[in-house]
């Protein structure tokens, strides 16, 4: 990868986003688990559930702090590194981010203080309300972010305004109830629940292996296994829905994920594994299951799954139509406030939605109208993302998804039969499974974002056109800065997490604790 401003900006965004998403899913899921545990405490009055809430709450707090701080970086980066993007779609994309702040983030961040500091200041129900407010806040937050991201995948309800040279919202309900956004929201939130469930399950399993905090660990595992079973089932089912919508709205992404080089007659086979070769446009050593691909992608036995070569041909047509729209736009702008010829107006109305395809040519020629047929063909082939990384990360994500279902079913059964501490091997499996849901979640984002390339907004704005006019050295400097800062934080975060886990729940909170006034431990 060369050191140009586009690659550097993409690298920084990917790096900071993937890092941010190490913390977000645990916040999403653990906040709900905390609320569930505290609800049990309030309903039964049994103090062990209070101890559990406070213990997992400590781990939640360590994780939450970095999640918030790295989230701020994400919000600022659109303007910092992607200023043309911000200008071009801020009218639509900015609104969900602002509403997130208004509706979700204030709720989450205001009540998280009460969660930690309010235990002795309010009634049981009052504190429970604060905990649920945190859980709702973080989940609403995900809703609005995914409405924003869903719009980047499927940009509905907006149109280009030649006077302001940007996309403007025409139908806010379409943006809000964008099917892609809704599918992504439920898929992502259940992924977060799965992450938190595996985390709670794994840490508790470690306690059982060590024979420590047995009562707390068993109860926590029961919560994690039941919640996690529901979550891991929905993450796969809802992920399938998300994939199905990709068939409808992002055919190229789907073709790349499945390494479908040429349109397959219905019903298409599903390639389980293989080695996609972008140059030869072949998948070597492919292991295929007949019919399954067509069933998953189109939910029918008669609809063919479109292949990369055919989609490139369609992109060529779109580019040519996009150039007519570009031409019309230049004439409209040249006319200023004067009259525009009706045929020009018509040309823009007909093909204005394909304007982005003309911008794909900007890589090769300043004026897309002067592009040669070879350049059009090159630009059309640019719409194909890198197949092999998508093919593999997608399979990693799906494979892990099915593994989590198995894991959760196993522990759900063990918990129901009160045999949680019977099989040390299974407990060990739960411990080493802790990092896996993170790998699945990060793979999922990779597929979603990398698979959208070369577009930053599918079919509307190429990523290469969206960057700020910054010097490469400047961006390189902040990449190094973020990398250093984030690495140090990661080490500290892991150390504190491990410390808190090793230390276990506070004995002051134990169900049988004699309450004596605590004293402050001074520094050495």
């Amino acid at each position, binding site marked *: 990868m060369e050191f140009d401003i586009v690659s550097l900006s993409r690298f920084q965004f990917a790096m900071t986003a993937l890092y941010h998403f190490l913390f977000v899913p645990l916040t999403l899921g653990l906040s709900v688990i905390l609320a569930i545990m505290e609800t049990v405490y309030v309903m039964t009055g049994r103090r062990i559930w209070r101890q559990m809430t*406070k213990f997992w*709450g*400590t781990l939640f707090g*360590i994780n939450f*702090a*970095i999640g*918030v*701080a790295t989230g*701020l*970086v994400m*919000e*600022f980066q*659109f*303007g*910092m*590194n992607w*200023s*043309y993007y*911000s*200008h071009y779609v*801020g*009218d*639509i994309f*900015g609104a969900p981010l*602002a*509403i997130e*702040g*208004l*509706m979700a983030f*204030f709720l989450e*961040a*205001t009540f*998280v*203080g*009460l969660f*930690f*500091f*309010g*235990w002795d*200041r*309010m009634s049981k129900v009052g504190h429970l309300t604060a905990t649920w*407010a945190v859980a709702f806040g973080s989940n609403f937050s995900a809703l609005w972010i995914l409405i924003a991201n869903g719009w980047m995948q499927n940009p509905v309800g907006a149109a280009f305004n030649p*006077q*302001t*040279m940007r996309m*403007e*919202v025409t*139908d*806010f309900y379409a943006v809000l109830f964008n099917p892609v956004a809704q599918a992504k929201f439920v898929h992502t939130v259940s992924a977060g629940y799965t992450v938190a469930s595996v985390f709670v399950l794994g840490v508790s399993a470690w306690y059982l292996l060590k024979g420590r905090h047995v009562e707390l660990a068993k109860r926590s595992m029961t919560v994690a296994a039941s919640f996690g079973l529901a979550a891991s089932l929905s993450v796969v089912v809802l992920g399938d829905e998300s994939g199905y919508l990709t068939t409808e709205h992002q055919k190229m992404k789907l073709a790349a994920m499945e390494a479908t080089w040429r349109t397959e007659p219905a019903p298409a086979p599903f390639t389980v594994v293989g080695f996609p070769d972008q140059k030869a446009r072949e998948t070597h050593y492919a292991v295929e299951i007949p019919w399954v691909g067509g069933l998953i992608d189109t939910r029918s036995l008669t609809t063919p799954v479109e292949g990369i070569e055919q989609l490139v041909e369609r992109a060529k047509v779109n580019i040519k139509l996009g150039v007519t729209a570009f031409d019309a736009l230049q004439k409209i702008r040249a006319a200023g406030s004067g009259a525009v010829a009706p045929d020009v107006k018509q040309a823009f109305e007909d093909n204005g939605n394909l304007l982005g395809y003309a911008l794909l040519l900007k890589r090769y020629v300043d004026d897309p109208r002067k592009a040669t047929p070879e350049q059009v063909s090159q630009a059309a082939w640019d719409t194909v993302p890198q197949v092999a990384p998508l093919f593999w990360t997608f399979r990693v994500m799906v494979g892990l998804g099915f593994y989590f279902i198995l894991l959760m079913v196993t522990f759900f059964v063990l918990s129901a039969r009160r045999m949680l501490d019977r099989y040390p091997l299974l407990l060990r499996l739960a411990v080493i499974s802790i990092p896996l849901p993170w790998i699945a979640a990060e793979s999922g984002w990779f597929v979603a974002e990398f698979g959208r390339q070369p577009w930053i907004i599918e079919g509307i704005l190429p990523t290469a056109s969206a960057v700020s*006019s*910054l010097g490469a050295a*400047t961006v390189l400097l*902040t990449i190094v800065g973020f990398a250093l*800062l984030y690495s140090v*934080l990661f080490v500290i975060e892991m150390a504190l997490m491990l410390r808190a886990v090793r230390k276990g729940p*506070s004995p002051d909170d134990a169900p049988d604790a004699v309450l004596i006034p*605590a004293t*402050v431990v001074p*520094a*050495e």
Partner: protein
Amino acid sequence: MILHELIDYQVLRLIWWLLLGVLLVGFAVTDGFDLGVGALLPFVARTDLERRVAINSIGPVWEGNQVWLILGGGAIFAAWPPLYAVSFSGFYLAMFAILAALIVRPVGFKYRSKRDSAAWRRGWDCALFLGGFVPALIFGVAVGNTLQGVPFRFDEDLRIFYEGSFFGLLNPFALLCGLLSVAMVVMHGATWLVLKTEGPVAARARSYGSLAALATVALFALGGVALFLFVGGYKITGVINPLGPSNPLMKSVETARAAWFANYAAYPWLLAVPGLGFLGAAGAGLALRARLEVGALLLSGLSIAGIIATVGVSMFPFILPSSLDPRASLTVWDASSSHLTLFIMLVCTVIFMPIILAYTTWVYRVLWGKVDAKSIADGQGHAY
């Protein structure tokens, strides 16, 4: 959808200009005392216990307060996309410095007291000081540059080009504004500490607070004089259509001497705005001496509101002038979102802002009272 045409585009733009001010003031008044406590930490609190008391005075609330900044960023993105695009990419390295400071800050709060080592805690104290001081300084420097105009231009596709350097931002007038910003944040943080703590921390905060209040008055006055003598300002020549499309290249602008004082000449009653800045700070200083704890915090908040509003009122209708190509300057009338987006965002704000204010007030009431060694001990490991 015709509903949004119930409110004129022009009126919506004016409302969103006011809301931009409300958000900035909201951030400066709430998170301002958090930043101020950070900046004051090494000075008002000497022993470890004193430092924990100071940190825990903002422990439960800083997270909610910081959302004003997050909301501000989102709202600028949604309501003023060109402003968001130009300022965040133009002030690139300054933004990075703010982010770095704001990343270190929450981590410092959470992690400082998790280990008993004195070196560990001293390290985080230093981080917390920077996390308060640096953002306060940079926000002020950014405002100082905004008043002077920022070197950006648009090409015909409205792509932004910024032709300044990071060190160009650090000019004398901007640094003066940066100092003013630090002074007012320190004043505000001190009034908070006086309200929330007792004993030596409160006593030291009282004297630093009075000093900062005095500095705020002096620097604000000095800033006004420097603005008049050295900065000048911008004015729109010819007509601008307040209902026109958000394209900043459709007007003409020139620089003019004392242009930032024109609004006060036209409407002398606007002088009440800077007046609030002066009287609030002076009043906060006096209230600290008179031991009116709540009064000092409120007056200091009013002073901050007055000072920020002064910037907005002086520049109106400009939001971000361009020194490179004055006609590219962003104004209230040509740098907003579309009519529909402004309307939708206003509806959301009208629904959610009262709810936010209600539960924030409730949380502050629950947490009312002084923070001392005992309350930290009762925090049982949840305290910072």
